[in-house]
């Protein structure tokens, strides 16, 4: 019950981690089923229809329900601590964001049990996703599930932006902010400007499917390419929404375990902003073969290649940070160091794909699959693993087992390269993507088998991580405030796990790497910026849970409005259920606006007792 009503950013971070981790397992299982199907030619392990569903749900789940929530988990757990704040700007909204994401994700996965998951690919291209080719409810689940989950992401992004702009500790100027916070800041800005476009695209597709509108249906005057534009003006920034926080994690981890200041901090900040900006300018490079013409293709091609410049700046800065440092290869750092060459490889194939004429050859082949998995798994997932190992002691007060951690890294890392490196060559040989099987004698057999073996190795790596988590959970809390002993930022100045109010006294920040600066100046801890006094906290609330639940009910109802029988004459019972769901939502909004939440205070004595217990 405590977990259903919490508005504490640290607990919400843990909720995001559990839910995101669960969907990561679901998406991973789908990937393994895909690889089992492809391990030999003319395999009939799953049917072609099931394969399309697996493929669609794997992509959708991994991007929206695994990767983003796991990043939100880290951001929630760490950002307020890194900037010296007691919570995020809108704790209630934070909780609401989590519950809408979770109920959206559940709605999407309910489709497995109600007669068919979405199967038009994670991009849901029209007209394939229209009712002409997709008469069942699969794509309805996609449209409504993502719409609901997207609301959660959008309000989460606004929340982080306000938190970072308004709630930094005294002295924490923008150019003293830790790199992870900077990355989260730019990511949140991208979310703010990308997700509304997706919302409109999904709404239009929903109108087309449920209410016979004509946005993307050529027979009604609609335009299928319009869907691609709308999807990718969201979808391309989405790639950077995913990767920038991973960049942030890598910056923190490499700097900490090299015992050196991050090389070229201000150029890192500039590069992050530039990547975020350019991320919006290049969406049509997903559409080179649509027929936009040579001028558009050339412009988007050049703009895409430009992104290599700030990314290169970041890569070299990480290398220079390690250069001459006294490097400790903890599990977190192994993941971070492994990230660098892997991401570079993904970047190089990215430049290859950015060349429009070459893209006509690579298009829709396994080369593309290999490229984006190098970026998203080799970049993002390694970054998330690194971040989880790095901040685990802070989140739970327990150290993860290093031996198991290293086993996780090596099996996952080797499995990853085994799976995807070879797919570049499969693609160059002409194996198409999104195809459920292939003929014998095309030269694809051995490489596909190797790829499948690699996928299982990645699965083992994930199992080792879960094992590590379970074993650690049964150990007593053993993490000190600064478990890596070289902590540089504010989160390492407070106990692990932190008390509910984070900071007994808001710290005074006197430079970049605030804690490191105090250490090198010979101080034991931060100078407080305020006297000890009672701390005001927001009260927990069950409303966000019910608001998410209401949206879930509404989505389900409207989806089946056409199928279900009538109620009171001609009124469809599906609409009735949908309206009930919306009433739950608006009822909760009404309650929230009329009931004043005064919160509560944590008294001075309790804070002093906590501080005494720590010493």
């Amino acid at each position, binding site marked *: 019950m405590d977990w259903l009503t919490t508005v504490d950013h640290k607990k919400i971070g843990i909720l995001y981690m559990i839910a995101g981790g669960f969907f990561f397992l679901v998406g991973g299982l789908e990937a393994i089923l895909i690889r089992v199907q492809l391990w030999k030619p003319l395999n009939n392990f799953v049917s072609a229809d099931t394969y399309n569903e697996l493929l669609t749900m794997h992509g959708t789940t991994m991007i929206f329900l695994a990767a983003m929530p796991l990043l939100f988990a880290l951001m929630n757990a760490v950002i307020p601590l890194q900037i010296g704040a007691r919570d995020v700007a*809108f704790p209630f909204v934070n909780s609401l964001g989590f519950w809408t994401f979770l109920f959206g994700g559940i709605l999407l996965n309910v489709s497995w049990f109600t007669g068919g998951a979405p199967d038009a690919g994670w991009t849901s291209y029209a007209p394939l996703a229209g009712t002409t080719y997709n008469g069942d409810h699969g794509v309805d689940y996609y449209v409504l599930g993502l719409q609901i989950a997207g609301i959660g992401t959008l309000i989460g992004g606004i929340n982080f932006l306000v938190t970072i702009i308004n709630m930094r500790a005294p002295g924490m100027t923008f150019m003293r902010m830790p790199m992870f916070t900077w990355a989260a800041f730019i990511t949140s800005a991208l979310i703010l400007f990308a997700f509304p*476009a997706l919302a409109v695209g999904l709404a*239009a597709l929903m109108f087309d499917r449920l209410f016979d*509108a*004509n946005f993307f249906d050529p027979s009604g*005057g609609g*335009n299928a390419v319009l869907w691609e534009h709308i999807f990718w003006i969201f979808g391309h920034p989405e790639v950077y929404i995913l990767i920038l926080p991973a960049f942030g994690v890598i910056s923190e981890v490499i700097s900490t375990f090299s015992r050196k200041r991050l090389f070229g901090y201000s150029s890192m900040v500039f590069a992050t902003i530039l990547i975020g900006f350019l991320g919006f300018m290049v969406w049509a490079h997903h559409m080179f073969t649509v027929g936009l013409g040579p001028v558009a293709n050339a412009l988007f091609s050049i703009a895409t290649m430009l992104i290599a410049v700030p990314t290169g700046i970041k890569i070299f800065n990480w290398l220079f940070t390690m250069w001459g440092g006294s490097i400790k290869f903890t599990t977190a750092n192994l993941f971070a160091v492994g990230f660098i060459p892997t991401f570079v490889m993904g970047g190089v194939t990215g430049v290859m794909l950015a060349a429009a004429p070459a893209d006509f050859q690579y298009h829709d082949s396994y080369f593309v699959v290999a490229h984006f998995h190098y970026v998203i798994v080799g970049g993002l997932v390694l970054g998330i693993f690194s971040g989880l190992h790095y901040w685990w002691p802070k989140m739970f007060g327990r150290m993860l087992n290093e031996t198991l951690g290293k086993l996780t890294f090596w099996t996952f890392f080797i499995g990853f390269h085994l799976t995807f490196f070879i797919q570049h060559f499969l693609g160059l040989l002409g194996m198409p993507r999104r195809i459920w099987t292939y003929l014998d004698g095309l030269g694809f057999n051995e490489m596909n088998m190797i790829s499948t073996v690699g996928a299982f190795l990645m699965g083992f790596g994930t199992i080792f991580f879960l094992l590590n988590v379970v074993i650690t959970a049964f150990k007593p809390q053993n993490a000190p405030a600064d478990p890596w002993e070289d902590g540089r930022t504010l989160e390492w100045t407070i106990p692990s796990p932190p008390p509910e109010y984070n900071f007994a006294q808001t710290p005074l920040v006197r430079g970049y790497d605030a804690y490191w600066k105090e250490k090198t100046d010979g101080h034991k801890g931060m100078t407080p910026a305020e006297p000890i006094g009672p701390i005001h906290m927001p009260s927990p609330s069950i409303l966000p849970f019910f608001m998410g639940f209401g949206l879930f009910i509404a989505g389900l109802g409207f989806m089946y409005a056409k199928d279900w029988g009538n109620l009171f004459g001609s009124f469809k019972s599906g609409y009735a259920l949908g309206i009930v769901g919306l009433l739950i939502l608006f009822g909760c909004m009404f309650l929230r606006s009329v009931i*004043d939440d005064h919160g509560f205070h944590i008294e001075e004595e309790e804070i002093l007792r906590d501080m005494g217990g720590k010493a």
Partner: protein
Amino acid sequence: MSAHSHVEGQLPHEPEKATLEGRNKVLGFWLFLGGETVLFGTLFSAFLALRNQVLDGPPAHELFQLPLVALATALLLTSSLTSVFAVHALHTNRVKALINWLIITVILGAGFLALEIYEFWHYVHEGHGFTTSAFSSSFYTLVGFHGAHVAFGITWITLIIIQLARKGLTVVTAPKVYVAGMYWHFIDVVWVFIFTVVYLMGKVV
């Protein structure tokens, strides 16, 4: 800062920004409006891409009745002015005037909405239904999204009026009024674009 704002027991100058919660709300709402701009931008793009796809339905220049739309525009723009008066009343701490200006704003907004509903009803009878063509789908989606925003704003400001009547003007209610004012202006600005892009450009054959 005006001289009378330091008097003991009175609301601070700019009460909507007096607390951290208030400042967070105002900033968060500015950002939210940034997201709304993208939302409407995408809707406008879709409309512009599809506005000539009328199929068998009536084209825009035969359909639109500018006098009616001009009257609706006048109502909505006036309501933006009255919401400015409301925020001015907020800053000068005149609760009574604040409530009255908000009521006038809501009435003008409701008038606008009534005209829009009549307009839609009229168009449907002219053979311009939601499913007629890509033009009609994108028209009703864009203008309807705006109308839904107006309807939401009317409900929201009404709830704020009730809160003001019960609790008065405090550092808790002030940010709500201020933020609702921002929302109302935003709706107006969007309408100016709709008036230009949808109606005026629609009249150009």
